[in-house]
């Protein structure tokens, strides 16, 4: 039984790593622009499908690199045309807008690529378990964890050492002052949104390799991302990281003993955190205003 538990904790961390990738993109967008991006799942799906379309020409690796950038470009266009109009207003506006956008993206995918799932293949070299004992750690899932770690490292470098990154962090705390200091806030928000959608697109490609690529797959992956942000603390990227891993492990372990609750446990965790420490584990007070 202990071995089963250990396996599932490890497995939970792998699942959690994936949630982290989704949630960090979402958190970035939420922190700076106060936009609750319900369409994040939709962009995930678009990223996956673009990779599927590019795979015959560029191969898996080419599609993996190209697709997030293309998805980010689409995200940028959406931001300029739609999302920028609701900045500064009550988060309800952005919620309604992105909620509708999510449906448009899902149905758009259905119209372009068809309602049936698409077989997205990953290189055979990755689709093998590492060992007979640890059969649930396949090369692909390990690669996924590595990708998440690399992305987080890159994001950290971006936010800590580049000018744009520092401005994003400053804008998260006080956008008005940043604007008053002469920074082009519009461009900053666009860049931030594009980075968030880049991560969503990347999540989509990685998800497509492991799950069935289908128009509705974004919805199921979106809720854990929100929970990760709330549990970890709105406004804190470290919090999102911890939150994602935490709910991944919680979900994985619960699946062993009480499978019906493996999804509900995430919400229970969220409820507990909100009752005990409403700001989240690493959050600061008053972030979502």
């Amino acid at each position, binding site marked *: 039984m202990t071995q089963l538990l250990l396996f599932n904790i490890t497995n939970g961390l792998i699942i959690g790593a994936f949630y982290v990738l989704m949630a960090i993109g979402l958190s970035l967008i939420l922190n700076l622009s106060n936009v609750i991006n319900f369409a994040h799942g939709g962009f995930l799906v678009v990223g996956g499908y673009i990779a599927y379309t590019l795979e015959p020409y560029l191969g898996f690796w080419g599609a993996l690199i190209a697709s997030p950038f293309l998805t980010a470009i689409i995200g940028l266009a959406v931001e300029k045309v739609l999302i920028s109009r609701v900045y500064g207003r009550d988060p309800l*506006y952005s919620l309604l807008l992105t909620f509708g956008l999510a449906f448009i993206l899902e149905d758009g995918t259905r119209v372009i690529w068809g309602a049936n799932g698409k*077989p997205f293949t990953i290189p055979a070299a990755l689709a093998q378990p590492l060992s007979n004992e640890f059969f649930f750690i396949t090369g692909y899932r390990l690669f996924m964890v590595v990708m998440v770690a690399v992305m987080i490292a890159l994001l950290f470098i971006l936010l800590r050492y580049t000018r744009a990154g520092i401005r994003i962090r400053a804008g998260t705390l006080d956008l*008005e002052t940043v604007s008053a200091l002469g920074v082009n806030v519009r461009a900053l928000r666009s860049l931030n949104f594009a980075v968030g959608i880049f991560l969503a697109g990347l999540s989509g490609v990685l998800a497509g390799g492991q799950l069935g690529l289908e128009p509705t797959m974004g919805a199921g992956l979106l809720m854990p991302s929100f929970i990760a942000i709330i549990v970890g603390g709105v406004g804190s990227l470290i919090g999102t990281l911890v939150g994602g891993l935490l709910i991944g492990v919680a979900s994985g372990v619960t699946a062993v003993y009480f499978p019906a609750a493996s999804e509900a446990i995430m919400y229970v965790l969220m409820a507990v955190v909100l009752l005990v420490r409403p700001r989240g584990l690493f959050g600061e007070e008053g972030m979502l205003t």
Partner: protein
Amino acid sequence: MTKRLDFGAVDRRTIVKAGAVAGLSQIAAPFIWSARAADAIKVGMVDPFTGVYAAVAQNELIGVKYAVEQINAKGGVLGRPIELLVEDSANDVGIGVQKTRKLIERDGIQFLIGDVNSAIALAIAQVSNEKKVLHIVSGGHTDGITGKDCHWNVYRVCNTTKMEANSVAELLFNKYGKKWHFITPDYAFGHTLQEAAQADLTKFGGTVTGNELTPLGTTDFSAYLIKARAANPDVLLVLPQGLDMVNCLKQIAQFGIEKQIHVAGLQQELESLEAMPPEARVGIWMFEWYWKQPGVPGVEKFVADIRKRTGGKVPTARTWFGYTSMMSYALVANQAKTLDGVTLAKALGNFELPADVKLQPNKCYYRAGDHQLMTSSFVGEALTKPAGDPEDLFKVDTIVAGDKTSPPESETGCTLQWPA
């Protein structure tokens, strides 16, 4: 003029307007297909065209539309053309019931087809029963529809979960072994499917090493697969359908589980196999209808005609369900020379489908006692490499007749109450 960066507030009127738009979208007109004529017979179809079952629902619709074309080309029903009205239940029981009521009360349909989702099928069956409209459930599998929840006006084309289990169980037991482990989707269909398979297994003398109940929409099956591996069964039965099936098999293939444990299941669909990468297409399954049936009359023409209408894609079992449902109505109405619901419902009992509708080698008829179509099960293996045609992903080994897989009428729990 500079754009404000603004920090405004929500307007109450905006929310009210948004709500009104959302409400209006509910009562928009149905999608009407085929020429409107003053004396057309209206037929309604309710299926989940958006959401997880969109692909199979769309295939059902293709079958129904093709049938309507064929029927109208031959002069329609009692000399009148068929007009098909289509509504989206969006996988929601409330919406399905609302759309059904609208089709019956406002649009005046004489015949109803639907729903793929078993829960919605049961709910709209109550509506059609209340309104005395003949109703064929094309794709909902839960046993209750022709079991304890049967109605005099409701017939069903697709298999019951008991039929599916019975068709494959013996083969799996004899070929693979007696210790079975289940991965079961946690809803009505999954439960009844698993219980039926377990009953068969116990009858043969096997044991269940475990039953993992997975919530619908589970994307990551790794925890359940870890448990299944630890239990060391002979056979791992994968019962989830649609996207869940695709996810599960993909992960099984990536974990290399099919190299240690035999992977099998009960119901499988071409839509799911086509959504999987080749290495995930493993195991023994049953199909409810398959397009490659050399030598069986009518099949080749059906496949060719459907391919013309889908841009080259073959018909699936779902296409056949839709086609059969619509054709059954036309045939029985033309034979009974009436559109009265009660008369037609009685006439469909023991009605045998002709060769160009049943499209299978065995006798295919609606049983009078429970209104279940005695349709065959196509048992075989999934193919990693397509056999010639890129859509030939399943090798049929045996075709078991419906009345061999189905429990007798007395055991289904169905008691039909006809109106006075």
